[in-house]
């Protein structure tokens, strides 16, 4: 369990973290997201007792990290894969770490095996690629078999195989009931790895939510294609849905209409997919005979259409990609920060 309470960290006149509060629970992978400079690494440094908070608290398993006697048994962390002595061999790097926390050398061999570095254990770290250093850093975090793990940008520099390996590892660690906090500035990465997301911008909390909730929040309705769009629209509006003509191609993100747009269209060209867009007066994009429906899910739409004998060619739930959601969230924070300063 990781708990950050009203954490503020200032460096001179710069506020790096601003009254940030969140919790990271066991059994989940929590993505810690934010643009570069948002305060992710600072928060992690404070959590590890490396930097002192200006105010507030950052607790691990209910207490400050610095109070832990042999911390690697409780918390494993990868902050900066480059922070190693290039002249030291991989085995020795993990060896001194293990010794500092009363961990035996057999465990060193185990984690080297686990991260795929057993073959280069006796090589000097200076010759390692960034990806190999990431693996070494992950091995160091795993040494004490800790219940809490923190990784700062762990996939940086990894090849696709390595990225997939890290994803699987994070998920496996969480599945074992561990608390896993993974920072990234890439939403696309977190989308594939995390269950929950803590999004920060300019040191402030923007969102503390599950990946699913965030996706729902940025839902864009259901795209429906039918040879009888006007009939279908009438049925769906009657069922409580909101229907608009959909432009083909990119995600539809016009403000949700009141539902009368499509039904008011003439719909005469449904088979060849022309007509109703112009009737709606938007005049943009090629009308496709498709409808964008909100307020009803795909199953409900399918059932209504079947009940009225209206054929459907396509029913596709759509949402903004999490990447777009993230960009929207963090863009807002940047604006807020600019105004605030």
């Amino acid at each position, binding site marked *: 369990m990781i708990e950050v309470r009203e954490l503020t960290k200032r460096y001179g006149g710069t506020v790096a973290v601003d009254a940030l509060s969140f919790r990271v629970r066991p059994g989940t992978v929590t993505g810690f997201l934010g643009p570069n400079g948002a305060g992710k690494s600072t928060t992690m440094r404070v959590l590890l007792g490396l930097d002192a908070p200006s105010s507030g608290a950052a607790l691990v398993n209910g207490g400050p990290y*610095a109070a832990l006697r042999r911390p690697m048994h409780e918390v494993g962390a990868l902050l900066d894969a480059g922070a190693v002595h290039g002249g030291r061999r991989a085995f*020795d790097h993990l*060896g001194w770490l293990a010794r500092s926390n009363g961990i035996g050398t057999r465990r060193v061999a185990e984690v080297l095996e686990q991260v795929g570095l057993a073959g280069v254990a006796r090589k000097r770290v200076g010759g390692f690629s960034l990806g190999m250093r990431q693996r070494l850093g992950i091995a160091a975090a795993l040494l004490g078999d800790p219940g809490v793990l923190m990784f700062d940008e762990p996939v940086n520099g990894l090849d696709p195989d390595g990225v997939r390996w890290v994803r699987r590892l994070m998920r496996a660690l969480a599945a074992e009931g561990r608390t896993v906090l993974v920072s990234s500035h890439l939403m696309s990465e977190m989308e594939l790895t995390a269950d929950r997301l803590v999004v920060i911008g300019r040191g402030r909390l923007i969102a503390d939510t599950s990946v699913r909730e965030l996706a729902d929040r940025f839902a864009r309705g259901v795209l429906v294609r039918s040879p009888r769009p006007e009939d279908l629209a009438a049925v769906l509006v009657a069922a409580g849905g909101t229907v608009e003509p959909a432009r083909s191609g990119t995600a539809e993100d016009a403000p949700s209409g009141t539902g009368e747009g499509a039904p008011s269209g003439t719909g005469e060209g449904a088979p060849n997919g022309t007509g109703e867009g112009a009737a709606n007066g938007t005049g943009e994009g090629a009308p496709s005979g498709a409808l964008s429906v909100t307020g009803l899910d795909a199953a409900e739409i399918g059932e209504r259409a079947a009940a009225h004998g209206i054929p459907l060619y396509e029913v596709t739930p759509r949402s903004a990609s999490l990447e777009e959601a993230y960009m929207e969230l963090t863009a807002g924070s940047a604006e807020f920060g600019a105004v605030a300063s």
Partner: protein
Amino acid sequence: MIDALAAEWWKLRSVRSTFAVFGTVAVFVILCVVWSLYAAHYWDGLSQARRATFESAPPEQPLAIALPVCAVLLGALPMTSEYASGMIRTSLAAIPRRPVLFCAKAAVPGAAMLVAALVGLTAGVVAGEAAANGRPMRGFDASFLDHVPYLLAMAVTTAAITLMTAGLAVVLRSTAGTITTGMAVLFVVPPVANLLPGPWGERVWAVLPESLAGQMASPPGASPTRDDLSPAVSALLLAAYVLVALGVGVRVFGRRDA
């Protein structure tokens, strides 16, 4: 504390710079042998009259010059190399109790330097005795036991310089800055102090760290010309320097963000 000491010892013995420092000590032990052989050869060629006034630096002299340099390097590198690479954060994450980590980072190189100095100086003196081979050469004719007080004073001063440098290193955090400052104190300040007028040149020289070993115990055969401080005062002053440096180090290391 045992964990921290053991971890720091593992770190120290797993980098090449440590071997470079101890290799330097070994090379200077060899130079002690060469110096002793040369002195014996020189002595053999002297007339009886010249032999009576013969004076020579003691056999361990070459090593005595190199040890303070090695001490500065070994005191600085374990600290400043970690600041340079960022590994200091890894160390602090592993051992979050900062006074413990700092003391281990100073004590391990300090102890290693003490042992290296004792072994090296002993080897130098033994080699000198062997080279003199019974010749009544001044500076070489003392028994090993006569050398012991000076060897101990030299070794302790060497270790003290390592500890002081560790304190300086945590304040400066820079390898270049720490080594430059250390070398300046060892090699630039003494001649500058000698330029001071009147008794001040000797007074300042007497309190410099490197001058203290000779004032705690002079090497056998040396003519004591500058013994401004008594052995006890010299020892106390050295201890005070170490305590101040370590105290400042603990304080700075304990408070500063890593």
